């Protein structure tokens, strides 16, 4: 029951927020996935204000802190909805017309392929659920940081602001890291009544499925049912992504928010509805609450938006989207500045370690964490190169991926973060958000080609 209350407390305010910002119906895969993202950030930020800004201790009134604003959002949504109807879908009729119909029209070969995919999917679903109910998060960063901080608040009932305490600002490794993931683990435990590592697994599994839902929705609207299933299955069956579906790390949730930002930006390119651009900005800003690595993607998004939208549209509409991003991230960034937390985890200064590039490439092309995905990306990147000038959507998607990869590579080669590439501790998982973005680019290339 506690678990259900927890997820209801995320999705209900998320639905209201989505309706208020997007002005479209929430009843679609992308709508519900977005609602989960908005709702989980909304609850985490509410708890952040409660514990970190107002310095309150946990109490039964904490329910009011979460549920009262949710009810107020519901009321606001009710009054706003009375003044104007929601748009059924933000997509243009041309885009919707391109999406082909469902299972009935598929050839026998495609049906057999789908059957094989279905079997593999179901077996791995059982594996994933088996892991969720039997294996607590055990990886180092979860043990020492993401789950550690959640436990610090749960067992201490408050945040320690004494700088001499080992539990200062939650303790554990990296006190400068953002709080959405630990606060969601805390909030789940608060609802359940005990701290249970097995039950917190579900937070990450739902993020995983929400990301899959967002991708499936994006591909189905643009490529049709069959290609959408294939690409979504590809993402589902990436070994490293699958592993991160239940290991209580922040990389997969970060990928989720960045993919949503990219999806809504692309939808804005199609429809030019300001609401889509605003949502893209909000998701980009909220990604700062997930993991500090979000800052690496900000310049990539700005550059890609410039290329995708063109200078005139960029200045007229995208600057508003950037403002939305800044507003969404502002409380955390101000807090960071106030407590001198910063973004870096390594010694400052520039270095040069070209071997880190080799580690990065080995992670992409040699390890079997990715199946043959990066070969496929390379194939479509070359194939699509000539289409960039005449297809702004394609230019946006590929340049977003390319700039993100470039920034990541520069960080590993030219800063002291090279050590995380050399010892293979962080380089592979730092590619997870990139993998999400690359799926959008490949999907759009398929749309453009076939």
């Amino acid at each position, binding site marked *: 029951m506690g678990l259900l209350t927890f997820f209801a407390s995320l999705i209900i305010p998320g639905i209201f927020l989505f309706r208020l910002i997007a002005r479209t119906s929430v009843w679609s895969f992308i709508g519900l996935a977005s609602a989960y993202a908005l709702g989980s950030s909304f609850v985490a930020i509410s708890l952040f204000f409660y514990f970190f800004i107002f310095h309150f201790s946990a109490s039964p009134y904490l329910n009011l802190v979460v549920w009262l604003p949710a009810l107020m959002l519901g009321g606001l949504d009710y009054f706003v909805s009375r003044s104007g109807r929601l748009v059924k879908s933000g997509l243009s009729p041309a885009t919707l017309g391109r999406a082909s119909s469902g299972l009935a029209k598929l050839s026998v070969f495609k049906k057999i392929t789908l059957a094989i995919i279905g079997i593999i999917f179901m077996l791995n679903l059982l594996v994933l659920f088996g892991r969720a109910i039997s294996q*607590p998060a055990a990886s180092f960063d979860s043990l020492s940081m993401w789950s550690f901080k959640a436990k610090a608040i749960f067992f201490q009932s408050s945040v320690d602001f004494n700088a001499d305490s080992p539990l200062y600002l939650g303790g554990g490794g990296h006190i400068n890291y953002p709080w959405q993931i630990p606060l969601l683990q805390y909030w789940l435990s608060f609802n359940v009544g005990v701290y249970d590592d097995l039950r917190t697994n579900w937070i990450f599994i739902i993020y995983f499925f929400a990301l899959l839902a967002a991708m499936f929705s994006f591909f189905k609207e643009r490529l049709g049912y069959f290609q959408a299933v294939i690409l979504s299955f590809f993402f589902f069956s990436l070994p490293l992504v699958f592993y991160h579906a239940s290991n209580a790390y922040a990389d997969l949730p970060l990928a989720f928010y960045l993919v949503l930002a990219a999806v809504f930006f692309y939808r804005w390119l199609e429809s030019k509805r300001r609401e889509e651009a605003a949502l893209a900005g909000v998701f980009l800003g909220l990604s700062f609450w997930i993991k500090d690595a979000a800052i690496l993607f900000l310049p990539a998004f700005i550059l890609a938006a410039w290329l995708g939208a063109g200078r005139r549209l960029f200045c007229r509409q995208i600057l508003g989207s950037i403002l939305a991003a800044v507003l969404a991230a502002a409380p955390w960034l101000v807090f960071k500045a106030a407590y001198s937390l910063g973004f870096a985890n390594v010694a400052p200064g520039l270095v040069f370690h070209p071997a880190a590039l080799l580690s990065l490439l080995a992670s992409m092309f040699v390890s079997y964490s990715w199946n043959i995905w990066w070969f496929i990306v390379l194939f479509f990147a070359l194939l699509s190169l000539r289409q960039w000038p005449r297809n702004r959507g394609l230019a946006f998607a590929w340049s977003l991926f390319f700039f993100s990869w470039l920034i990541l590579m520069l960080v590993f080669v030219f800063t002291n973060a090279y050590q995380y590439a050399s010892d293979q501790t962080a380089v592979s998982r730092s590619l997870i958000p990139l993998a999400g973005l690359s799926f959008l680019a490949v999907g759009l290339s*398929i749309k453009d080609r076939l």
Partner: protein
Amino acid sequence: MSAWFGFFSLDSLSTINIISGYYIGPVPVLFLFGGLALAGSFCLLFASDSGRKRDFLSIFLLVWLAFSIFWTINNVRNIIFSRLAFGQDYDNKKIIRVCSLGDFEGRLCRIFSFLDKSLSDCQPGSRVYIDSPDELKIYLQYYALPQWLPAPSRDRAECLIQYH
């Protein structure tokens, strides 16, 4: 460069992928297959019609499915074996018996899991196996004994450390 030259070696491949913990024999062959498909696609890149490109998509799909089948078998095998292994004894390993209920057990299991040893099913009375008590001691002190842990759990932890 050794990682590239070791591409065809099963051992090196499994070393690279410590994080996933998987060990799948035919993977290098599948990667080779994928590489050949890619090389072939480059040859046809600038002189192919959309039908041929669809053929290459089919090749990618087949390679992917072949890999995924092995990956699935391995996933299923791992989760079954990781359950069955809990009941076995290994004479050359040190044994710790987790003696009572509480938050501490869950914490202990995570520590063992981090040490990449057999993961207990986190039930009271179950056994876990380690071969590095010093390392365990460090992690118990650092991670399992924060201030908020109730006193009885602290006592049990110290008792366990002295056990070695």
